């Protein structure tokens, strides 16, 4: 169950970003996870309320986007959607492929509730 430590990492990042962007609360967190990241979405969702309690992201909605595994063949350049334990090219069968999607574990975006009193120094 390393998902709890991963959740703590998410919260720490969210806290730093909230300060940086002059926000008082984080109301939404979107993460992107692939099957080859070793992170289980269900376990992450379970650990999140625990890790976020009393933090700036307490009560935030955690949105988990789970991607498929896609490899690109280094021999014939074909892209194939594959199972996490069979990273083979579907066209020529080669195992010499590169994972181009499916091993990510990313904090994609945050939704913030801004402090109203102070100027929004980072607005674009």
């Amino acid at each position, binding site marked *: *169950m*390393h998902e709890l*430590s*991963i959740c703590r*990492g*998410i919260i*720490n*990042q969210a806290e*730093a*970003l909230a300060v*940086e*962007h002059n*926000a008082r609360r984080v*109301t*939404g967190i979107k*993460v*992107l996870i*692939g099957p*080859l*990241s*070793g*992170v289980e979405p269900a376990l992450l969702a379970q650990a999140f309320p625990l890790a976020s309690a009393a933090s700036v992201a307490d009560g935030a909605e955690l949105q988990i*986007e789970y*991607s498929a595994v*896609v*490899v690109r063949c280094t021999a014939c350049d074909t892209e194939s959607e594959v199972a*996490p*334990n*069979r*990273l*083979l090219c579907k066209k020529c069968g080669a*195992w*010499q*492929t*590169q*994972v*181009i*999607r499916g*091993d*990510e*574990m*990313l*904090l*994609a*975006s*945050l*939704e*913030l*509730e*801004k402090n109203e009193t102070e100027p*929004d120094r*980072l*607005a*674009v």
Partner: protein
Amino acid sequence: MCDTCGCNVTPGNEHLVRADGKLSRTDDGKAAITVLQSLVSENDHQAAHNRDHFDRHGVLSVNLMSSPGSGKTALLEATIDALGHELKIGVVEGDLETENDAERIRARGVTAIQISTGSACHLDAHMVHSALHHMNLDELDLVFIENVGNLVCPASFDLGHHHNVTLLSVTEGDDKPAKYPVMFRAADLMLLSKADLLAVLDDFDTGKAERHLRELANNAPALELSAKTGAGMDAWFGWLRHQIGEQRERVARRETRVPAVQSEGKTLHTHDHGHIHSHAATEHAHAARARHRHTG
């Protein structure tokens, strides 16, 4: 902080996370920001810092992973016995509940730093960092990190080492790479341990284990060996000597090596935050500023 570092944004997933602007207002007055940073970016920064420690001292660092009882400590004992006169070896022990493994290593006359953080299921870069500060890296050529026996969790945490060595003992079955793809995809070397038992097992097929490894698009070598009888150990020692030579050359070129499992995004992507990583008095408050050197 490297907010937009996006270490594993790849051409394949970029569209999923791309937003219009870095900061956009939603209707209800809330702000949405695009972040694109690894969920383990804190750990990654600490790992980069650890790797810097190893590299500054010209030390090669190897992370040993396997399920519980696959023979990690036995492999270390036999390796120390065989190479102890030729290489100066140190060990970081991730045996979280007991001092047993560290004591076995110390009995060989080698420094072993025990990481004891209770019942964690993996080591992380911060734990390894505290252990490193109890070691005199100047005196060492090679540091082994014996990870917690677990085929799942340790694979997600870079410790700042250079190579992942994954043991699969022949009693566990040749299908383990297919069952634990995240772990075996990360292997730079797969050791089929307890090979002396092959004689009494009729269902472990080394060729099959290797095939499962290839099906993870991993070209890591696979070596059969037995720490008990010594069979196959020379090839392992040869691999270690070779990697120590490679590490010395990298250090001379001021390069480093990150273990196998790196997404395309990470290898394509280089960045330098421009902070010089100085080892002054405030040394270790700065994990987040450790300089990255991704050289794949």
